[in-house]
């Protein structure tokens, strides 16, 4: 890890630490899911001496049509069909442990051992989210502690920067030059910000109004660009869903259309927004922060648009007759959860393939080209710069996809662990052989705290998606652990009422006012105490 910061600066080191954190998080989540869902499921399928019983079947007659689900199992298929199925999650992969549709709503009971698989499925998913949240917050806490202790981000204090800025342990010409360049850039940025601030204070009213209106106009333009991208994603998803069943390479292309549109949007729109930002004339640090926020907004909301489109098709917003029978669109989506899981799987896989393709097809040739030919063009283009924020956003996007898809595709955390693991080593190779260090860095955007905040934002979106699926949409009646319920969440109340009466009373008491109000007051007192302690610690550090 130390070699990263020595050669490329602290930002790159935080990026690779962040990537390692994600690998560990995904692996632990996979262990959780495997332990509670996968292994019991395998065991129950292979042993048939356990009594299988569905939990409270809402078996209304006339709904037999809703329970039809034929995942098109073919015995031996042509080899390329096998490969296409692997890429799009259909065929042999569809009816496997990979996706939601394969799991049964078994409640296994044998001599005192009682295992309710649907309940386990639901609670594991909920706990998975809570576990990720706790990990992120713990990491953020430890990073904040380090940041506070070392007094990060002391920009604006020029004498401090000049008198204490040099690291005398820095050895080697390359590291020295890198440090000198970054000090140079930092000083320039701070001086320019000060000049811009003084200038903006001295603008006349007319000039201020002109500048503001220009900025508002350009903001609207960039929002329009982003809105255009969203519309494109919506149309692509609708079109792609209608093309299910197309054969061959063209079929694969249609199936991957939403992922392609999202990835293209993620390349094109930030590039155009950067060009627009040249006219906005913000200070350099504000420009970088604005660009980052636009990228985050674009990526996360485009994922949201994809999900929204899928759901509007499943629950048919506009076209009611299709959904009247089973309360979801059972003609096109006999098992809609598997379909959503497949979309998330495709997104994750496509993201991975594109990143590897970029490494092989763009960065390596670029390095070879720049190193072996020297003309004005190569000098202008130069080696690839390793920019940390776009890489981080890519990883956060991948992780958000996994969170959204984990409910429908339980093996997705395992796939993601492998993906991030491979990506770690590929990025390391490309960093050391192809890239030159980024000179223009802005401290707060390369810190691990910023990465974790963006990750939290992604987590929030995935949480909204999960809550909507659990509480609003009718689960498929033809497949999956929740096939006999009107709502996925209802397994919890159903099981709750089978508990003993004293347990029920106890839990009701915990939820009642007599318990929760004193608990709330107590937590406020603890919060005030901790805040006071933190304030004292801050002051003491300043005095030293």
């Amino acid at each position, binding site marked *: 890890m130390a070699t990263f910061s020595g050669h490329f600066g602290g930002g790159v080191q935080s990026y690779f630490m962040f990537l390692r954190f994600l690998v560990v998080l995904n692996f632990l989540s996979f262990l959780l899911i495997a332990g509670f869902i996968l292994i019991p499921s395998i065991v129950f399928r292979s042993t048939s001496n356990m009594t299988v019983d569905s939990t409270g079947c809402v078996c209304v007659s006339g709904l037999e049509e809703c329970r039809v689900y034929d995942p098109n199992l073919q015995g031996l298929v042509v080899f390329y069909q096998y490969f296409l199925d692997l890429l799009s999650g259909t065929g042999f992969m569809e009816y496997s442990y990979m996706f939601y549709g394969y799991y049964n709503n078994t409640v296994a009971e044998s001599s005192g051992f009682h295992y309710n698989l649907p309940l386990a499925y639901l609670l594991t998913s909920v706990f998975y989210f809570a576990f990720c949240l706790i990990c992120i917050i713990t990491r953020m806490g430890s990073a904040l502690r380090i940041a506070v*202790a*070392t*007094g990060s981000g*002391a920009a604006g*204090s*020029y*004498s*401090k920067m*000049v*008198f*204490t*800025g*040099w*690291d*005398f*342990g*820095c*050895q*080697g*010409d390359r*590291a*020295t*030059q890198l440090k*000198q*360049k970054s*000090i*140079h850039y930092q*000083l*320039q940025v701070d*001086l320019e910000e*000060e*000049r811009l601030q003084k200038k903006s204070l001295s603008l006349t009213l007319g000039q201020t109004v002109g500048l503001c209106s220009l900025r508002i106009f350009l903001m609207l333009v960039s929002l329009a660009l982003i809105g255009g991208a969203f519309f494109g994603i919506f149309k692509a998803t609708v079109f792609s869903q209608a093309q299910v069943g197309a054969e061959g390479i063209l079929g694969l292309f249609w199936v991957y259309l939403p992922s392609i549109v999202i990835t293209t949007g993620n390349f094109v729109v930030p590039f155009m927004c950067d060009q627009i930002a040249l006219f906005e004339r913000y200070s350099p640090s504000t420009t970088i922060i604005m660009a980052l926020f636009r990228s985050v907004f674009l990526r996360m909301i485009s994922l949201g648009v994809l999900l929204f489109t899928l759901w509007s098709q499943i629950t048919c917003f506009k076209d009611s007759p299709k959904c009247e029978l089973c309360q979801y669109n059972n003609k096109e989506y006999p098992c809609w959860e598997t379909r959503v899981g497949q979309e998330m799987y495709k997104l994750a896989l496509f993201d991975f393939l594109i990143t590897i393709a970029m490494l092989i097809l763009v960065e390596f040739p670029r390095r070879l080209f720049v190193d072996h030919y020297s003309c004005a063009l190569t000098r202008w283009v130069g080696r690839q710069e390793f920019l940390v924020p776009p890489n981080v956003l890519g990883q956060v996007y991948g992780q958000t996809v996994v969170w959204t898809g984990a409910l429908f595709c339980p093996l997705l955390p395992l796939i993601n662990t492998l993906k991030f693991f491979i990506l770690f080593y590929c990025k390391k190779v490309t960093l050391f052989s192809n890239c030159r260090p980024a000179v223009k860095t802005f401290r707060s955007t390369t810190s691990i705290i910023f990465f974790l905040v963006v990750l939290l934002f992604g987590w929030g979106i995935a949480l909204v998606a999960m809550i909507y699926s659990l509480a609003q949409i009718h689960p498929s009646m033809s497949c999956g652990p929740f096939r006999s319920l009107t709502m996925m969440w209802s397994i919890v109340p159903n099981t709750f009422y089978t508990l003993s009466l004293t347990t029920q009373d106890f839990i009701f008491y915990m939820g009642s006012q007599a318990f929760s109000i004193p608990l709330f007051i107590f937590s406020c007192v603890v919060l005030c105490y901790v805040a006071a302690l933190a304030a004292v610690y801050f002051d003491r*550090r300043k005095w*030293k």
Partner: protein
Amino acid sequence: MGTTASQLGKDLLSEYQELTFLTKQEILLAHKRFSELLSKEDRNLTSVPMEKVLSLPELKSNPFRKRICHVFSTSDMKDGSLTFEDFLDLLSAFSDSATLEIKSHYAFRIFDFDDDGTLDGGDLEKLVNCLTGETEDTRLTPEEMRQLISNILEESDIDKDGTVNLSEFQHVISRSPDFVSSFKIVL
């Protein structure tokens, strides 16, 4: 008095350990590296010329290397040559266990390019040039330099005499918690 023999006497070793912040192992390592700098013909010399000292990998790329040699040199000819004891003084000031006052004292002397006891505009300009790089395209523009120096003086010059003296310098240093760890050279 510094011995250039291949072995350092035991009592001399303990004496050095008491006088500096270095441990015995660090002093032995310093002795070994110092002896390597002296080539065979100069065996009767007691001090190493500055060019040889600057060939040490720890100092070779440091922009302040010449100032460091000048500050720690006790030679009458002011040519930056170091005896073994000067070398130990250097390592002691830059060691892990040296106190903040010692480090800030020496840092002040290193940054004081004209050796007049205060950091005036000229010293600050040379200091900033060392920090950003000594070539033409890595320097700040004259405008930026002027703005930076006036900001520095405004922030740290408490008695408003146009220069930064030692106590004002130490006041700035004391507010920076990672100065001690960055002002460190270990062999």
